[in-house]
């Protein structure tokens, strides 16, 4: 073992692999968010996801394995099978879809009440996506509409984003990386 390795393990900088779950309603922009985070050479044209896709990307020396879940109604029940096996959750919300904000709340409640997430300090990152849309709600409004302040035993963060251009994504992922590293350190 070289000196550098020793140093990096000492400062917890060693490259590690974490698994995150990307959920959200259909057409909220989950695949687009991941598409932007991926390296340039394997970008795809985004189409409605069937079942789930596994994507890999790197951020600050941390390798992310993202499970891009489909948001279609018939695939939403697949989400809960992966709650036990992830270190963080990215919840993508379409901030221009005011009608289905109630559905987002419903899905969030189901997520928070699931036995696999109840006891865990899973960091949840909310992307208030499509912030460029004309009638988009601000991230503050979404946070209050979803009653996010009620989530007390999990760290959460909401940031407005535009997944097509990539605005706001880095800030969110930065926060998530920090939280996940913190969690690992505590263990």
């Amino acid at each position, binding site marked *: 073992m070289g000196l550098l390795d020793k140093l990096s393990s000492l400062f917890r900088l060693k490259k590690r692999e974490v698994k995150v779950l990307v959920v959200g*309603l*259909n*057409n909220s922009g989950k695949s687009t968010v991941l598409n932007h985070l991926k390296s340039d050479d394997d970008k795809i044209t985004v189409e409605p996801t069937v079942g789930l896709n596994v994507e890999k990307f790197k951020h600050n020396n941390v390798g992310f394995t993202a499970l891009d879940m489909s948001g279609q*109604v*018939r695939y*939403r*029940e697949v989400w809960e099978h992966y709650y036990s096996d992830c270190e963080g959750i990215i919840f993508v919300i*379409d901030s*221009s*879809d*005011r*009608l*289905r*904000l*109630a*559905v987002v709340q*419903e*899905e969030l*409640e*189901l997520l*928070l*009440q699931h036995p696999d997430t*109840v006891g865990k300090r899973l960091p949840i990152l909310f992307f208030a996506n499509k912030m460029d849309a004309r*009638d988009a709600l601000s991230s503050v409004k979404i946070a209050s509409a979803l*009653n996010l302040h*009620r*989530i*007390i*035993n*999990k760290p959460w963060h909401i940031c407005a984003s535009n997944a097509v251009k990539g605005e706001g994504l880095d800030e969110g992922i930065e926060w998530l990386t920090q939280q996940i590293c913190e969690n690992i350190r505590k263990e």
Partner: protein
Amino acid sequence: MSGFSSRTLQFQQPWIDAFSDSNLALNTLPSCIALADLQDDADSKLIVGAFDETYTDAKLKIFKGTTQYGEVKLPGTPSAIQTFYSDLNKTKIPGIGVASGPNIYVYKNLRPYFKFTVPPQSEVNSLEADIWQQKCDATQLTKLLEDLKMELGFTNLSPASQKLLLLEPHLREQFVQTRGQLALGLRRKTTITCMTSIPKYSTDDEKSISCLVFATECAKLYFLDIQAFTILNEFSMPGIASHLAISGLYVVSYVVIFTTRNGCLYTMNEKKTECIASFSAPSIGLVLQGDFIMTALMDSTLHCFTIQGMKQWSVELPGIPITLASIPIMSLSLKLVAVSCRFRDEKTSHLFFYSGPQLMHSIATPQPVSAIIFGPYGQGESALITISTRGSLNIRLLKRTAQFGCGERAGILALPPPNSQIKLNVPKKSKLLVEQTIREREQKIEIYEQWKRSWLHLNVMTCEEYLKALQSSAVSQNNSLKLTAQVLGLGPHLKIQVFLQNLSKKEAFTSLTVVFHYNKSVFKMDSPSRQVPMLVPNYECCVESYIVCEMSVSSNVTVLVFDEQLRLSAFINIPACNCICSSQ
């Protein structure tokens, strides 16, 4: 755990209240509401044909999500709205057909696209034309037309005559003068009462080309080709249709189902028209789910028939129905019917969801719901959109975890008790009543004979209807006996097993005989007739018989079960055997 526990009670409710706006003042009819993907962007929009309280100032309002997205002024009050696809272009932009008076206005991309006018009815009554041709003054003309009205009925007169009769007397002279100068094109325009659409070539693709089907006030049914805007078929109906539904494919076969204003339910295809039922009250709506027709009546009943005309069930509704709609929930493979009801006390109104005759769920609504539509809206797949009589819009989305019929029914109905002390409005003894009493006293024999005759006539009619119902009903007289048959073996020696079971609770069958009827040149059987021992209730009896194939052809054996009369019969297909047993 985060503190969401206060909401767990609401969890039972299968619907999410996504949006409601009570200030929209949307006045509409149950038939003037539609959902369609207007821009082919997988974002379904709501189309409402709205008008103000005086039935004027009609507009086509388009809603996207929670906001109004567009508005088009309509030239007349809509009576029905139907969206359809009329071309094979790659971007599937649906047309919106708006029936208003004798016209169908077609809009595409929220712009006027085509106006179709129903061909006017054949020339008006020749007598009426004659009256108009005689150059007489207004009072005389009015008198002649009044007489004609008595003869033909007001609705069968031309619009000009109708207008003249409705005018104030002092305005008539002027009307006749201006009218007389015009060329006498007395034609009766008709009005479209209801409209629907039928796929033309394929039922698999929702966005395939369809035909518009509409019924008019002149009791005619038209099929309209919406590519060329030509009439494909024209049928005469037995009455003026109030609600219309259609099943099938235009190029293959179809069944038109409609209710008439006088409360009859008909099915109609290219060849014949059949009256399924005549109700005591007019129908308020018609729903077609697969092979089942559901209709709610003004007398607070909900009925179900098959498309073949067999009655399935009927239930009493808890309130006065206003409208009904089909709620197919594919994820639960459940087909519900939503009926909006108001109650006599005017305080409460409910939406009731029925699955078959069972009440599965109900929602209390602050205002009575006048229009219901269920389908994809926005990005959501199942949205229940309701518009109340006072014009508020409500959008409810189906929960992913929704379950119907487990406990919600309890405590749904805190119905007002039926008003048992109805005060009868007994009129005072009038002169008419006194005269009637005197007449009854004087001509008692004639009146009694008349009554007796009517009574007998009613009896005969009831018996005839009962007999008809017995013959056409699904429940057969033999339903207490069950017959199943199976064939064992590969041939040429086969064993036929006939299982007979008595399903009745009280009756026992004593002298049953099983007879096998078969082609004597193909099969040989030792005992084609077998006595069955007494069949006590619930006991299953097996009658076995051996049969030998003598020719290598497939054929069938008929099993008949007798006592004094033929009870049951069954056909057994026996496939051809390769090896045969030649008779010695």
